[in-house]
């Protein structure tokens, strides 16, 4: 489980993350979406205990943050991290790198070697294990970094931009592995720019730009508010005031011959909207419900002025 309670972090007086509160239940995958500099990496670092928050607290895998040095070490033993860049030693082989980092998690040599072999075989990296890491492809490097993140069998995994810079095939491989990890019941916090990836993998999505702008399941984020699009035979602007005065109409906007109307209940309010337009002299050519995509929800959220 990951629970953030009013987490905030400033650098030299400038806020990077403000008042972040959310809960990721055990076994759920939460995707943090946000533009560059939105505070996603800072959030992950705070939840890992690498950065102390300026204010607020968190509970990750049963460990309260901020905590003592020993609590921080205990937390890091229970969680896995995939950093934005793989972060291995180029001159060492893939196998040597994996054994080195696995040893830092205090794993027994025999256990470590068994797990490392099993993961390398599963991700089709076994044949390349004795080649220097610097000669590996980007996709292979990222897969090895994922193995490092799970080698000590953490209950909580933080993935910072896991598919950034990968080609479509490489990204797909990494996404499949993340889906497998989710199926195994691990709690995952994934930071990404890739909306399709978030929508496909996540149980929960948080849109962040310094503050948490939206948080919920992908379905709940794109469900509300219901909108309808109406195409007219002429300019739509003269009908805006009429629409805004109607009961059940939350918002209305005109764009040329197109009206974008947000209503409370589409089944009840749409016939009334059409009736009023027709009686007002509008030539209604087409009517269709508008289901917002995650992209629209995201763009609307991040473009809004800071609340």
């Amino acid at each position, binding site marked *: 489980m990951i629970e953030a309670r009013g987490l905030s972090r400033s650098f030299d007086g400038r806020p990077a993350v403000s008042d972040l509160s959310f809960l990721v239940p055990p076994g759920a995958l939460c995707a943090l979406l946000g533009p560059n500099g939105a505070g996603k990496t800072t959030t992950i670092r705070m939840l*890992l205990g690498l950065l102390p928050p300026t204010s607020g607290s968190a509970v990750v895998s049963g460990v309260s943050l901020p905590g003592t*040095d020993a609590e921080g070490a205990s937390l*890091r033993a229970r969680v896995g991290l995939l950093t934005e860049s793989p972060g291995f*030693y180029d001159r*060492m082989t893939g196998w040597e790198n994996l054994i080195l980092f696995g040893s*830092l998690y*205090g794993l027994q040599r025999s256990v470590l070697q068994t797990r490392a072999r099993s993961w390398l075989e599963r991700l089709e990296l076994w044949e390349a294990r004795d080649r220097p890491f610097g000669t590996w492809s980007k996709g292979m490097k990222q897969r090895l970094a994922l193995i490092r993140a799970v080698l000590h069998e953490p209950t909580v995994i933080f993935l910072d931009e896991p598919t950034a810079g990968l080609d479509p095939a490489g990204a797909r491989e990494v996404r499949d592995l993340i889906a497998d990890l989710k199926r195994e019941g691990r709690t995952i916090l994934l930071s990404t720019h890739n909306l399709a990836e978030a929508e496909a993998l996540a149980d929960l999505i948080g849109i962040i730009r310094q503050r948490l702008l939206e948080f919920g399941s992908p379905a709940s984020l794109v469900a509300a508010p219901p909108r309808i699009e109406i195409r007219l035979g002429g300019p739509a602007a003269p009908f805006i005031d009429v629409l805004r005065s109607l009961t059940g109409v939350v918002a209305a906007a005109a764009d040329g011959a197109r009206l974008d109307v947000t209503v409370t209940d589409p089944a009840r309010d749409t016939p009334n909207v059409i009736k009023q337009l027709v009686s007002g002299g509008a030539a209604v050519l087409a009517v269709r419900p508008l289901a917002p995509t995650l992209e629209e929800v995201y763009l609307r959220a991040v473009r809004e002025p800071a609340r």
Partner: protein
Amino acid sequence: MTRDLLLLFLRKELRDLRSNKQVWPAYLILPVVAVALPITMLAFLPFVADPTRIHDPAITMLLESVAKDATLTGATISERMARLVLRDLVLFYLLMPVVLAASAAALALVREKEQRTLEPILATPLRDRDLLLAKLFAAVGPAMLVAWGTAIVGMLAGLVGAWWRLGTLVLPTAGNVVGLLLLSPTLTVLAALTGLRVSARFTDVPSATQFTGLVVVPITLVIVAVLGRPAMAYPLVGLVSALLVGLAAAWLFASNVRRFRREEILTKWR
């Protein structure tokens, strides 16, 4: 865990050394010089110590001072000179690990950052104290091994050289032993800790290297020269110096741990 960790980082550094040919000269040239030096000096000693052949006033003054030096024994001026050469040569073995360890330590953290391996390391359960101890061990270990290995070979070469040129056995003095076994490791640890401090502060490899080369190493070499020379002549001075340097190193290690800022390293280094 700590012992395993130290060996783990030592193995990693040794593996890195083995595969990084750029650093080989530093680990090869100094030992070669350190072994060649006593042989060369002893080879020319009979000529240098012969007042009938040398008319250089500086050498004459040196020979006079050697003749008066109560810490040197020997029936002839050549023998006394040989003892001086071999005794002071140990200073070179004191300097060598200091330079190697300070240079390695200066890169220890900044290079991890450059390779982007520091964040994954910091994300493991490793504590700051353990990380700094492992890095210290990895810098000091190879430097001391090289220094002691070279000292053994160099002193054997000196022994053979003195026997060959002067027909006398010149054994290491008590000051030599104290210097090599106590003062050298403590000075090396102090230099490496200073290098680590630099490495934790600087954000790029060239700056860390330059600062270490231009500031840390020269200052440490002055300390080595000031403490090392009397320590070679008077073992008690060596013992007290080693103790004081050891205390300074312990303080510096504690200070390094206190001042190690994960936060600064993660957020301000680019």
